[in-house]
C-alpha cells in the first residue's frame, strides 16, 4: 500500500466520520465544528489529487468563510431567541434506510464500472489553466454566476430588511 492510498483511506475515515457527526450531534455549535473538519478533509482530498489551488480555495471559502458565517448566525440567533438551539434528527431510521439504499446502489454500480488504474498526469500551471478555462470554454456560466449572485443577494436582502 503506497502513501497515497494510505492517506486516502485516512482522509476517507475522517470525512465520513465528521460528516456523520455533523448530522448526529445535538449541540448545534459542535455540529458546525465537525462541519469545519469535514470541509478541511475535502481540502485534503484535493491536495492528494495535486489540485493545490482548489485545496486553498476550499480552505479559504468553506472552512474559513462559510463556517465563520454559520457560527455568527448561530450566536446571533441564540441571542434573539434567548435559548440554546439544539439539533433534532427526527425519522433517523428512514433516513438511514434511504442512505443505505443509495450506498448499496452506488457500490453495485461501481463494481461494474472499469476505472482507469493510473491517474493522468497534470501538466503545467494548474491555477493558470483553471483561469484560462473559466474565461474561454466556461465563460458563459462564469458570467451568469454574476447575475445569479446578484439575484441571490437581492432575495436575501428582501427577506431580511424590515418594512419601512
Amino acid at each position, binding site marked *: 500500500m503506497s502513501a497515497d492510498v494510505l492517506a486516502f483511506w485516512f482522509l476517507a475515515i475522517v470525512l465520513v466520520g465528521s460528516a456523520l457527526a455533523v448530522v448526529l450531534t445535538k449541540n448545534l455549535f459542535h455540529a458546525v465544528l465537525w462541519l469545519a473538519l469535514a470541509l478541511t478533509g475535502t481540502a485534503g482530498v484535493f491536495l492528494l489529487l495535486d489540485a493545490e489551488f482548489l485545496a486553498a480555495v476550499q480552505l479559504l471559502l468553506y472552512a474559513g468563510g462559510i463556517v465563520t458565517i454559520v457560527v455568527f448566525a448561530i450566536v446571533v440567533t441564540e441571542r434573539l431567541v434567548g435559548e440554546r438551539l439544539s439539533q433534532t434528527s427526527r425519522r433517523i431510521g428512514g433516513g438511514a434506510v434511504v442512505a443505505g439504499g443509495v450506498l448499496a446502489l452506488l457500490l453495485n*454500480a461501481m463494481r461494474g464500472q472499469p476505472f482507469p488504474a493510473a491517474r493522468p498526469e497534470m501538466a503545467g500551471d494548474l491555477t493558470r489553466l483553471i483561469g484560462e478555462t473559466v474565461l474561454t*470554454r466556461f465563460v*458563459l456560466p462564469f458570467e*451568469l454566476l454574476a*447575475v445569479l449572485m446578484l*439575484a*441571490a443577494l437581492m432575495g436575501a436582502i428582501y427577506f431580511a430588511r424590515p418594512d419601512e
Partner: protein
Amino acid sequence: MTFETLTLLVPELALFALAVVVLLIGAVRSSAYVGRGPLAEVSRGPAGWTTLLGLGATFILTFTVREGASLLDGAFVQDSLALFAKRLFLASAAISLLGSLTLRTGAFSRRSAEYHFALVASLLGMSVVASARELVLLFVGFELMSIPLFLMTGFLKREAVVPEAALKFFLVGTASSAMIVYGMSFVYGVAGSTMLSDIPPPLRDGPPLLMLGMAILLAGLGFKIAAFPFHMWAPDTYEAASPPFVAWLSVAPKAAGFVVIIRLYLAGVGTAALVWTPVIAVLAGMTMVTGNLMAIPQRNIKRLLAYSGIAHIGYMLVGLAALSSSGVAMMLFYLVAYTFGNMGAFLVVQAVAQSEQSDGIDAYRGLAQRSPLLALAMLLFLLSLGGIPFVAGFWAKLYVFWAAVERGMYGLVFLGAVLTVVALYYYLLVARRMYIDAPERPEPVQVPGLLGVAIVACVIGVVGMGLYPAPWVTLAQRVASTLFS
C-alpha cells in the same frame, strides 16, 4: 467573442439588459411622478411596464436569431427547441405580468422593482437552460432560474402562510439542485466531459455508474417539474403565492424542466433511449393518479389547480414515455395548450380573489349570474384542462394518447383516459358552483382592465387551438423532428 456570437446571444443579452434597467428604476425612482391618462398608469408602475415592454422586444428579437447555430463548441445552441421554449417562457411571463400589474397594494407597490428584476433574472436562467448542451452551463442556468422564484414566492412576506411556503419551496428546490449536481458528477466521472455530445448514450448495457447518475439527475429534474413522488411542494407554494405569479410558476419552469429532460434522455439517442420507457411510463402513471385523486377533496381553488397541474405533468410525461418524434411533438403541443388553460384559470382566480378576498371554491357560487363573461372564461379554461372537444385540451390529450398508442402503451393510455373522467368530475364541481348554485351577493366581480386583457388572451389561445390546432401541430412536429434526425 466575434460579432456573430453576439447576434446569437441576442435574446439573453436583451434579458440581461432588461434586468439591469429594471433594477436601476428601483434605485432612482423617488417621489411618484403622476402624469395624465395612460402616462399616469405607467408612472404608477414603471418597473412593471418597462419589463412588459422589454419582454415584448425580446420576443421579437428571438426571430432574428439564426436557427440551429451554436456557440462554444456546441455548449450553447439556439436550435428550434430552444427558440420554441424561449418564446413560450416570454409569452407566459407577459401574460402573468398583465395580471400582476393590477396588484398595487403592499409589497407590489413598494418593491415592484425587486419583483420584476427577479422575474427577468429567472427568465434569463430559463432561456439559458433551454439552450444549454453542457452540464455546468445547465446547472448554473437552473440555479439562476430557481433562486429568483424563491424570492417571488415569498414576495408577500408579511402574510401568514407565505414564509412557511416560501421556505418549503426553497428547501425542496435546493435539495433538488443538490441531487442534480450529484447525478451530474457521476455522469461527468464516466464520460470525462461535461458536453452532452460527449456523454455516451444511456443504453441498457451502458456503464452502470452512468445510468445511476442519469437516474439521480432524473429525480432532481422530477422535483423541478413536480412529478410524483417529488410533487409535495407544489400545493403549499401555489396556495401562498400571488395568483399571477403562480400562473407563470405552474407553466414556465416546468417547460424548462421538460426541455432538459428531452435533451438529456431523448435527443440524438433515437430508439436506443427505449431503456427509459418503463421509468418514465411509471412516473407518468403515478403522477396522473396522484394529481387527479388528490385534487378531488380540495376546497381551495389554488390547491385544486395545483393538484390538477401535477396530473397534467403526468399526461405530458405520457408523451415523453412514447420516446418518439411524434411523442415529443404532442408533448410540446400539450405544453402550449396547458399554458393557456392553466394560466387563464389562475388569472380568473386572481379576479375572484381580489373581489371576494377568498380562494375557496365556495367563492365561485353563482358567478355565472354575477359576471357571466368571467364565468364563461373560467368554464372554457376548466373544459380545456379537462379535455372536452373544441377547446385546446381535447386535442392535447388525444394527441398525447395517440403517440403512446403508436408505441403500444395501451395500459398507460387506458389509465390516462379513466383519470380524465375523474378530472372532469372535479372541474365540473367548480362549474356547478358557478352555474347552478345561487350567488351570495348580486354585484358583479370587478375585473381590472389589464387582467381582462390577459384573460381574453388565454381564451383566444384555448379556443383558437381547439378550433384550429393544425398550425400548432405543424410547429410542434417541426421542432421535434430536428431532435430525432
